[in-house]
C-alpha cells in the first residue's frame, strides 16, 4: 500500500513535531513547512494527498494559501485555527478547505479527521461508477429514484429537504458552510438566510436521526456549517 503523503504548514515547531510524530506512527509520509511560500513550492514538488494548514502564518494568511492551492490541487485541506479566528475559519472553508480543528486539539481527533478526509478523497476519485444507493446508519438513500428508507420504513422528504440531503451527501465528510449549502439548495438570493438551513436540518434530523438532539450523522459545526458523517457508498455491482 502506498503511504499517503501529508503536508503540514504550521509555524509553531512543537505543534509541527507532535502532529508529525502522530501521523508517522499511523504510517504516513509527512513533510513540514513553516511558511506559506515554502508550502506553495512543496505542493508543486511533493504533490501531497492531504494538507494541514494553520490559519495564522508568519508570511501571510492561511486563507490566501488555500485559495491559491485549491485552484490547481484537489487534495483535501484540514485547517487549524485558534478560537479568535472563528470568522476566518468559515472564510477558509468557503475558500476551499474541507475540515477544521480548533486549537487546542487532541491527537485522536486529528487522526480521525485526517483518515476521514483521505478515505473520502479516494472514494471521490474512484467513485465514477458508484451505485446510486448510499447509506448512513440505518438510513438508505437511492439517489436515482429519490427513495429513502429508515430501517424498513420509507421516509418522505420535501423537495428542499431532499436537495439539502443530496448536497450533504455530495460533500460527505467535509464541513459545508451555511453559505455553501444555501447557495446549492436555495440559490444565490438566499446566501445570508442561515435560519432556513437550521429549520430544514432540524426537520431532516427529526426524520433521519434516532435522537435528533444528539445527532450522530448530521453533525452541527456551530456557527460554521454542517457535516454528514458515517456515509457508506456501496460499490456498483
Amino acid at each position: 500500500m502506498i503511504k499517503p503523503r501529508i503536508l503540514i504548514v504550521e509555524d509553531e515547531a512543537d505543534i509541527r513535531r507532535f502532529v508529525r510524530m502522530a501521523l508517522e506512527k499511523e504510517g504516513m509520509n509527512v513533510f513540514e513547512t513553516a511558511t506559506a511560500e515554502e508550502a506553495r513550492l512543496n505542493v508543486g514538488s511533493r504533490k501531497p494527498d492531504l494538507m494541514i494548514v494553520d490559519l495564522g502564518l508568519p508570511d501571510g494568511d492561511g486563507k490566501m494559501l488555500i485559495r491559491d492551492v485549491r485552484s490547481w490541487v484537489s487534495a483535501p485541506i484540514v485547517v487549524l485555527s485558534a478560537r479568535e479566528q472563528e470568522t476566518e475559519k468559515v472564510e477558509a472553508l468557503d475558500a476551499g478547505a474541507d475540515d477544521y480543528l480548533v486549537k487546542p486539539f487532541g491527537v485522536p481527533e486529528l487522526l480521525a479527521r485526517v483518515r476521514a478526509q483521505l478515505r473520502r478523497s479516494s472514494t471521490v476519485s474512484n467513485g465514477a461508477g458508484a451505485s446510486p444507493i448510499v447509506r448512513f446508519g440505518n438510513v438508505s438513500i437511492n439517489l436515482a429514484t429519490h427513495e429513502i428508507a429508515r430501517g424498513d420504513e420509507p421516509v418522505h422528504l420535501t423537495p428542499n429537504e431532499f436537495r439539502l440531503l443530496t448536497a450533504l451527501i455530495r460533500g460527505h465528510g467535509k464541513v459545508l458552510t451555511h453559505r455553501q449549502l444555501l447557495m446549492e439548495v436555495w440559490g444565490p438570493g438566499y446566501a445570508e438566510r442561515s435560519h432556513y438551513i437550521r429549520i430544514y436540518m432540524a426537520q431532516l434530523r427529526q426524520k433521519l436521526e434516532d435522537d435528533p438532539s444528539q445527532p450522530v450523522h448530521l453533525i452541527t459545526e456551530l456557527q460554521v456549517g454542517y457535516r454528514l458523517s458515517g456515509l457508506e457508498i456501496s460499490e456498483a455491482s
Partner: protein
Amino acid sequence: MTDQRPDPDDLLEVVKGEDHRSKRGQLKIFFGACAGVGKTFAMLQAARQLHAEGAAVGIGVVETHGRKDTQELLEGLPVLPRKTVGGNGRAATEFDLDGALASPYKILVVDELAHTNVAGSRHAKRWQDVEELLDAGIDVYTALNVQHLDSLNDIVGGIIGTRVRETVPDRIFDAATDVVLVDIPPDDLLARLNAGKVYLPVAVERARQNFFRRGNLIALRELALRRVADRVNADVRSYRVSHAIKSVWPTQEMLMVCVSADRSQERLVREGARLAQRLQAKWIVVHIDQPYKGDDTRSRETLLTIATTAQAAGAEFANIPGQDIAETLLDYARKRNVTKLIVGNPPRWKFKLFRSRLQERIARAGPEMGLILLSVDDVRPTVKRKVTDEPRGYAAALSIATLACGATTALAAWLLRVFDPSNVIMLFLMTVVFVAMHLGRVAGAWAAFLSVVCFDLFFIEPTLSFTATDTQYFFTFALMLVVALVISQLAARMRSEARVARAGERRASTLARIARDLSSAIKIEQIVSMCRDAITPLIGAQVVLLIPDQKERLVATQNAGFVDLSVAQWTFDHAQEAGLGTQTLSAANALYLPLKASMATRGVLAILPSGSTILNDPDDRRLLDACCSTIGLALERIHFVEVAQDTLVRMEGEKLRNALLSAVSHDLKTPLTAIRGLAETLEDSPNLRVNDRTDLARSIKMQADELKRLVSNLLDLARMQSDGVHLHKEWHTLSEIVGSALAQSTTLLKPRTVQTRLPATLPLVEVDAALIERVLINLFDNAAKYTPPETTVTIRAGASGDSVYLVVEDDGPGLPATDPDGLFEPFARGQKESSIAGVGLGLALCRSIVSAHGGTIRARARKPHGAAFEIRLPLGAPPEVESETADDQTAHPDR
C-alpha cells in the same frame, strides 16, 4: 493705616471682565458727534494700516454714502459679499453674519453699529450681529454717533427736535475695548458739508436746515466729549481696582427706578440708565402690580416694552405684586440695599383727594434713601381702564337690579302696615348695597336710582306722582348712589384680589409641584413627560424639550412639527433665548428658551403658543423662566447622576478585575504547576514502567483540558465585560446548540446518563450560538464537577408566554443552602476552598451571557434532591420561511 489690598469682590469683577475679554473679540468703536465727522474714514484708515502690517482684516460692511475719498480707501481691502434677505418683493441686501463668522478674517470692519437689520435677518439690530462676532473671537471695528446711544436718546431728541429710533445699549459702548473719538470743530464740519463731502449735493440743503445747525452741532459735540470722558473715568476706576488703589466709592450704589405701566415711563428708564452709568451702579426697574388694577392687554404690552428696554440697558426688571405702592417699593428697596430711588413726578392736575402723593409718602417713610423725582410729561391721554371685574353683562345685571327693586317695593308696601317710611328707606338701601356688591357699579347706581324713584312714587304722599317737596329725596338718591359706588368698588376690589390670589396660588402650586416632581425625576423621560403633562396646561402652549446628544447636537425628545432645530441649536450654543417675541431669529413661530444650569446649558425648551399674548405676559414669562431653570437643574442633576453611576460601575469593574486577577493567578498556576511537575517526572525517570508513564501523560492531558476550559471562560468573560458586547446573533434552533454542547461535553459527563427532552415544535431563538453553547458547556461542566457518577442529567426546553426556557437539571446532591442567586457572582462557589478546580467563573459567565441576550438564569433546588438551572430567553419574532412551492416537483418523480 489704610488697607492697601484690593477688595476681592471688585478684583473678581475685573478678572472676570479680563477673562471674558481674552476669549472674546475686541470691539473698537469710532465715536463721533454726528454724521460727517469722518468716523468711517478714520476706521478705514486704521484698517488699511493693519492690512499693510499683514493682519487678516476684512470689510464686513461699510456705507460710503457715495463719498469719494472714503470709496478710495476701500480699494485693496477684501470686502465680504452681502446677503439678500427677505422675499416677496421687499428683498434688501444686508450684512452677512454667517459669511462673516465663516470668513478667515481676524478683524472685521462693520460700519454703523446702530443700524436696524432688514426684517428676516437673524438679529433685529446690527449691534447684536457684532456681539455674536465678538463671541466668536473676531475683533470688530465699528462706528457710532452719539445720538444713537440709548441713554442719551432723550437729550439728543431734545436738542435736534426729532427722536432717533435706532439705538444701541450703553453696555455695548461701555464694554468696548477701545473708543476712539473722532472729532472736528463744528465750523469745519459745516465747511465740509458745504463742500459736499458729507452728503451728496441734493441732500445738503435739507440737512443744513434740519440737522446741521451750528447750535445742534455744538451741543452734540459736547455730549459726545462728555460721554467719552465718562468712559475714560470708568477706565480709570477699573485700573484703580486692579491696581489696589483705594476706590473713591466706598459702597456700591444701587439705583431703583419705579415705573407704572405707561409709555411715558420709558423716559424714567433711560434716565435711570444714564445715572447708573454715571454712578457705576447696579440698577433695578420695579413695577408694582396692584391686584385691583384691571389688567388690560395694552398696559401689559407697555410693561413688557419697559421691561425689555430696561433689561437691554443692563437693568434688572422686577414686577412685584403689592397692595400699597409706597410700602411695597420701600420694602423691596430695603431688601436690595437700594441707595437711590427714581420716581416719576406726575403732572399737577392729577391731584388726589384722599391719598397723599407717592413721592411724599416715600420721602416720609424712607429717609435713608435718596429720592430723585423726574417729571413725566404724560402726553398720551390716559387709557380708560376697562372695568374687568363686572361679574355679568350689563343687560342681565340691570334687569336683575330692576327686579330686585320691584320686589323690594312690593315687600315694603306689604310691610308698611308695621313700618315707618324711614325704615322703608333702609330696606331700599339694603337692596342697593346687595345689588352693588354682587352686580357691580352700574347695576348699583341703577338700583339707587330706581329705589329713589320707587320710594318717591309709592311711599310719599301723594303717591304715584313726583312733587316739588321731593327735592329732599335727591339727597337720599345721592347718598344711595355714593353707597352703591363705594360698595361696588370694594366688592370689585375683593373679587379682583381673590382672582389674583387664586391665579398666584395656581402658579405657585403648579411651580411647586413641577419642582417637586422634577427633583424626584431620575430619568430624562420623566422630565419629558412632565413638560408635556404639567407645563403645557399651565401656560396653555405646546412645549417640547430638546436635549443635546453626545456631540452637543440637539435632539427633540418628542415628535413635534413646529420645532426648528437650527433655531434651537443657536439658542443652545449661545445660551440665549431666540425665536418668537425675542430679538433673535424672531421669524420663527415658536419661542426657544435655553435651560441653563449652574455648569452648562442642558437643553432647550421650545414653546409654541396657541395665542401670542401668553408670552407677553410678564407673570407667565417669569413662571416660564422659573420652569426653565428648574428643568435645567433637573437635567443637570440627572447628568451628574449618570456620571456618578458610570464612575461607580468603573469602580466596581476595577474591584472585579482585581479579584479576578488574584483568583485567576491562583487557578491558572495550579494546573501549570502540575503539568510542569508531571512533565519533569517523565523527563527525569527513563526507567518508568509503561503503565506509570501513561498515567503521568493522562494526568498532564487532564490538567491541560482544565486549563483550556478556564482560559475559554476567561476569554469569554473578558469579551462580555469589555464595553459594547457585540453579539453575533442569528436565528437558531435550540436543539442544535444543545446537541453541539453535548457533543463537546460527552467525555466530561461520562458515565452520567444524559436525557434530552426537546420538543420538535420549539421556535427559533435569536442568539449568539457560540455563547449559548458556552453557557451549556459550563452548566454541564458544573454538573460533572458537583454530582456523583450515577446521576442523570436532563436537558429540557419549551416555550411559555413570550420566552423560551431551557432547563439543565440533575438528581445529584443539590445546591448549597445559601441564596442560589449568589452562585452567579464571580468567584462564588458552593463550598469554599474545595478541591474542585475553577474560580467559580463559569456561572458568572453564564449570567453575563444570558443577560446580554436579555434573558435570565436562575438556580433552584429540586425535590427530593438535585439542582436545576433554568435559562429564559426572550422569544422574538422569527423571520418568515417561505413554504415550498408546488412547482418543486422535480425531487419527487414518484409522485
